[in-house]
């Protein structure tokens, strides 16, 4: 372990990590470009580097790119990566109130803490967590997806019917394209171009960014409610206050880190689900849970802590079992093999020093990410709020179109983005939930694939036994029932209290 740390801490490695962290952050901040693209872009540069340096570069860029998604979420209400969807709910309202610097500081500190927790889990308890991964089969994945879907009840407190309908719409949209089990084209609308289905990133850009652009067009004024530039503030003015509020929300940070680690180790789940589950569950433990969605620090901490915790945790099945947990982990897996490492059960025995260097690179990369994020991020916010509305609108539209195209190099994606944008705009107007649509879209394929696989497994036993008699499934069912029922119970209780108060008057 110590040898690995020594090999990492050279001037060259640290300088390179600073450079690639800035690049990763910039790429992650752009809608349409994910952490996967950032890491994939760095791979060719690492061929000529020593293994320690090459893997350190990839670790740093991965961590920063996941974190970078919060910038566009906060500034233009468009998650830069799927792991920052829930950051929009409180990050953007806070930015519109002129407290964007506070939002960025909260997101940075949350990402730093979550990133460190994920890395420590990778360092100390990787083998134990890997054993848990092996126990998750298709029925467990199905119930994880159902648990994720129960978040809708919490997203739509006071408006549960429409929120559930929005989620069902998202699930239906996820059915578009080729089925992974049968290979047939569903809902192709007469064109082969729909074979690839609706990409989540494209849908996100449409559902979140386009309505915001329309709001900017129709506002007749500024997106940001800032009339006086001196009110924007600085790092100094907000840092202490934000850190104090983060301390008040320590339960949110701890819970979200745990959620990030647990979802991160599950192959196929990852940051996309982690940030949404963390946001939902944090509402219950945060002292300001009722204010989530209006621009509170806890609402930013939860998703950002969780999504960065998945980075280190996602490497656990990759390193210990040789099973990449996320697409980015698969890219890093390939890079490791190019540098002569064989991920799997004997990795730590055969190449322990290099592996520990990489793990420490994630930790050091997290700290570098924090430094760069706070300095660049705050300047970025100050720059964006000063841009005249007429240029901001068109720049965001250009980025949205470019981002949508860059996902699969398809003009069809631009049209899908526009249609999803129209849907998102209409949803906003009639109080349907874009967040629930995205949730359905994200979880739909996981849910259906796990369901079909489980039904196939059940042919040897029984459907009831497969779905309801496995211990981990039972735990997930109980958590799902609680997660769904609790907001409904709270809503009914609040309505009853309101009626009683009215009767007293």
């Amino acid at each position, binding site marked *: 372990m110590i040898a690995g740390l020594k090999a990492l801490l050279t001037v060259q490695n640290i300088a390179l990590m600073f450079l690639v962290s800035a690049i990763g952050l910039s790429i992650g901040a*752009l809608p349409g*470009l994910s952490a996967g*693209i950032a890491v994939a*872009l760095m791979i060719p540069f690492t061929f000529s580097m020593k293994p320690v340096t090459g893997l350190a570069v990839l670790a740093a860029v991965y961590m920063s790119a996941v974190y970078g998604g919060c910038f566009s979420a906060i500034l233009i209400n468009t998650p830069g990566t799927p792991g920052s969807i829930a950051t929009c709910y409180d990050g953007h309202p806070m930015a519109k109130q002129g407290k964007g610097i506070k939002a960025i500081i909260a997101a940075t500190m949350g990402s730093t803490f979550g990133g460190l927790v994920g890395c420590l889990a990778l360092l100390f308890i990787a083998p134990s967590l890997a054993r848990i991964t092996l126990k998750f089969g298709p029925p467990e994945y199905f119930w994880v997806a159902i648990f994720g879907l129960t978040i809708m009840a919490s997203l739509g407190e006071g*408006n549960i*019917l*429409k929120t*559930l*309908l929005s989620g*069902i*719409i998202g*699930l*239906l949209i996820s*059915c578009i394209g080729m*089925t992974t*089990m*049968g290979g*047939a084209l*569903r*809902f*192709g*609308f007469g064109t082969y171009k729909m074979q690839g289905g609706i990409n989540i990133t494209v849908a996100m850009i449409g559902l979140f960014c386009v309505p915001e*652009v*329309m709001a*900017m*067009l*129709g*506002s*007749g*004024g500024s997106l940001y409610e800032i009339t006086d530039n001196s009110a924007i503030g600085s790092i100094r003015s907000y840092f202490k206050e934000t850190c104090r509020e983060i301390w008040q929300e320590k339960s949110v940070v701890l819970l979200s880190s745990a959620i990030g680690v647990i979802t991160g180790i599950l192959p196929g789940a990852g940051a996309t689900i982690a940030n949404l589950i963390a946001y939902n569950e944090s509402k219950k433990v945060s002292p300001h849970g009722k204010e989530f969605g209006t621009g509170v620090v806890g609402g930013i901490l939860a998703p950002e802590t969780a999504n960065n915790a998945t980075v280190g945790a996602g490497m656990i099945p990759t390193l210990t079992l040789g099973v990449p947990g996320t697409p980015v982990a698969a890219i890093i897996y390939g890079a490791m093999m190019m540098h002569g490492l064989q991920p799997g059960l004997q990795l730590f025995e055969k190449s322990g020093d290099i592996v520990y260097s990489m793990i420490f690179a994630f930790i050091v990369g997290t700290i570098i990410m924090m430094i760069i994020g706070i300095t660049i991020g705050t300047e970025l916010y100050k720059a964006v709020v000063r841009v005249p*509305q*007429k*240029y901001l*609108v*068109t*720049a965001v*539209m*250009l*980025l949205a*179109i*470019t981002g949508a*195209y*860059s996902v699969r*190099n398809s*003009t069809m994606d*631009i*049209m899908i983005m*526009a249609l999803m944008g*129209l*849907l998102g705009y*209409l*949803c906003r*107007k*009639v*109080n*349907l939930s874009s967040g629930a649509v995205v949730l359905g879209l994200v979880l739909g394929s996981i*849910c*259906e694939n796990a*369901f*079909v696989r489980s039904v196939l497994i059940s042919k040897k036993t029984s459907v009831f036994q497969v779905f309801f008699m496995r211990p981990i499934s039972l735990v997930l069912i109980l958590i799902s029932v609680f997660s769904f029922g609790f907001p409904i119970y709270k809503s009914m209780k609040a309505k009853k209290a309101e009626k009683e108060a009215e009767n007293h008057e």
Partner: protein
Amino acid sequence: MNNDRKKRNADIYAAAIVLLLLVIFGVQMKNIKAPNDVYFPSFLLSVLAVGFVLLLIKIWKAPDIRVIFSEIKLSYVGIGILVSAIWIFLIPKLGFFTTSFLAMTFISLMVDPEFSLSGEKKGQIILKTALVNLAVIIIVAVMFRIFLDVPTPKGLFY
């Protein structure tokens, strides 16, 4: 008084959207043959249909009355949608950057309050707006095409 006039039952519009999606996806269902591929979307459509009925009941029992289109400049939204549709349609025909430059300049001038008011300075404003949008396009082009090696749609022009 203006706000009272603009308030509508949002549930009616929501029900219309749900009905439209039910019809669109329902019609497409007949193209799906394999049983395994049918179960999940059928289940979802059934749940959506039940939700639609519940929404109809809600329209009557507990309507969601709200101002739906609260934008100050709703016409700009409509024009923006139209221009964006033309922009997206023309991208593969004329080229990404050419079409984007024209669309962005038009939209910027549309929302610029100074442009609608000024008389003599209109030429200056058009030039300045065009140059700024050109600079933004060049930055995006450099970022995506050269630095990130991510292609942009090609057409007749650049």
